[in-house]
């Protein structure tokens, strides 16, 4: 297994890209609920104080205000921790964003369990499922710094509501050189013929390591970075599933309602094949270091390998 190279956290990529976008598009307005130093939206606020609104610790109002701004043609980016933005602002995202078909960009930080010591109350393992169930909302979970920068830019350009989850820790590099991304189009980051691993977020790097381990055991595993959970890239999924006939899905999210469920739901109807899942089981995590948590809750390359082996 190659030694990992880490880039910036995806939340840093978000904040820095926002500051760039602020120069390019005067309609971009950024709102935060008193976590801007953690979500990194302060990087925009430092440069564009007139277009940065810190509403205070009130996520429901945060979303509602963004809805009104979007109705007037602004492009609001709103941020908080995933657990707070999504769970505390959910009715507002449903009514005032999704149902209202308004162009609000909902970008969370601190997705998943890899936030570490702050504990389970701050960790979001439900956000992807909750956001994906809102009609018309695109749902994105970038793997690393470079793809996060690109996907945030695409989010700004996209006409419609988008949810993007970013993470707290430095993210292992998946993409070492710039490339094209597209919302709703997965990236086949490694070719394979025996197995397809579909992953997003931090699990893409784990999946690549797992593919390396499996290659040493004679199994050629392909890896898809399915950064967009919705709309799901069904064409790429079908193409690879037909090729390999075996699929492992891996995500830093509850096994209920996220990428695993989306992939299974699609493939079961068009091309049933042997599948296994790497996800948070029906439980909350706890306080520990990010590495300890990823180990304990089965979010590692070794867990992907073990899941894959069940299919052979």
């Amino acid at each position, binding site marked *: 297994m190659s030694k990992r190279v880490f880039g910036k956290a995806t939340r840093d990529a978000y904040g820095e890209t926002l500051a760039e976008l602020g120069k390019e598009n005067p309609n971009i*307005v950024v709102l935060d609920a008193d976590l801007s130093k953690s979500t990194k939206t302060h990087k925009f606020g430092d440069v564009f104080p*007139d*277009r940065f*609104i810190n*509403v*205070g610790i*009130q996520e*429901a*109002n945060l*979303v*509602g*205000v*963004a*809805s*009104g*701004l*979007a*109705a*007037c*043609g*602004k492009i*609001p980016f709103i941020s908080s921790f995933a657990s707070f933005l999504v769970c505390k602002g959910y*009715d*507002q995202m*449903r*009514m*005032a964003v999704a*149902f*209202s*078909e308004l162009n609000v960009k909902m970008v969370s930080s601190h997705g998943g369990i890899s936030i570490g010591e702050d504990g389970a109350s701050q960790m979001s393992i439900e956000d992807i499922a909750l956001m994906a169930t809102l009609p018309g909302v695109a749902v994105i979970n970038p793997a690393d710094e470079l793809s996060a920068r690109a996907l945030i830019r695409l989010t700004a350009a996209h006409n419609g509501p988008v949810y993007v989850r970013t993470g707290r820790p430095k993210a292992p590099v998946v993409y070492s050189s710039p490339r094209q991304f597209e919302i709703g189009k997965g990236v086949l980051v490694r070719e394979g013929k025996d197995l397809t691993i579909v992953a997003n977020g931090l699990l893409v790097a784990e999946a690549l390591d797992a593919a390396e381990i499996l290659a040493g055991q004679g199994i050629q595993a392909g890896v898809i970075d399915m950064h967009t959970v919705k709309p799901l890239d069904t064409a790429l999924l079908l193409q690879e599933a037909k090729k390999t006939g075996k699929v492992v899905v891996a995500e830093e999210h509850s096994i209920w309602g996220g990428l695993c469920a989306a992939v299974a739901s699609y493939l079961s109807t068009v091309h049933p094949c042997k599948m296994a899942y790497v996800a948070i089981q029906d439980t909350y995590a706890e306080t520990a270091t990010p590495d300890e948590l990823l180990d304990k809750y089965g979010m590692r390359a070794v867990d992907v390998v073990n899941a894959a082996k069940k299919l052979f």
Partner: protein
Amino acid sequence: MSPTNLKNKPSIEELQAIAKRVRRHIVEMTHAAGNGHPGGSLSVTEILVALYFHAAKYDPKNPNWADRDRIILSKGHACPALYAVMAEAGYFDISLLKTFRKMGSPLQGHPDRRKLPGIEASTGSLGQGLSIAIGHALAANLDKKDYKTFCVISDGESNEGQIWEAAMMAGHRKMDNVIAVLDANKFQLDDSTEAICNMEPFTDKWRAFHWDVREIDGHDMKQVVAALEWANAVKGAPAMIVAHTVKGKGVSFMENNNAFHGVAPTDAECKKALEELA
């Protein structure tokens, strides 16, 4: 400014006549639909008539006019009143009112901005409108526009925490382009507001949140008009008009009768109500 389609602002007597027609529409619409919310529609009637026919500037034939004043009905279940006032104001033909709550109608059971031009916000999940109003007002500031954003909320709705989040934000930011009207009809679905979760004194609460507040009789058209003129002129703070109203106002057997919160009049009740509103 007056509505852009009106040469002269209607007199108080004319506004009262419009309000009576709106009440008839409310009774007929809910009767035709067989359901809907007549009680809170009848309580908010003068407020919406004064907003659309006196206080706000807009163009019913160009509902997305960028400089229009915004009117957001946060208590979305009272949309029969809103639709009736919008029809009277010329947004669409009055004949459309009979399609209320029918499949394919733009007059959805609760306001839907995607279906009906002129609806500023899709409401129906209580508590959300004031935040959306603040968003419109912030956009006005960013775009250096002088339009106002009016938001109508209710006393029952004020149970919702989001109302007070929005109240804090607008007060803190001294947003004098935000004007709220509280339709205080003293009832919510299950019982009186006093019995469920007493929110009084409203005026003290809103003042404590740094709003300028005026309390009025929400059925006295002269008071409603004067209060909206006062609110339009307030500087350095958002304005709140606490309008004391009667649920079911104008129909004797619906007044203060909470059975008509979300129940339509029967054939006989509709006939009697229309006689009273003749």
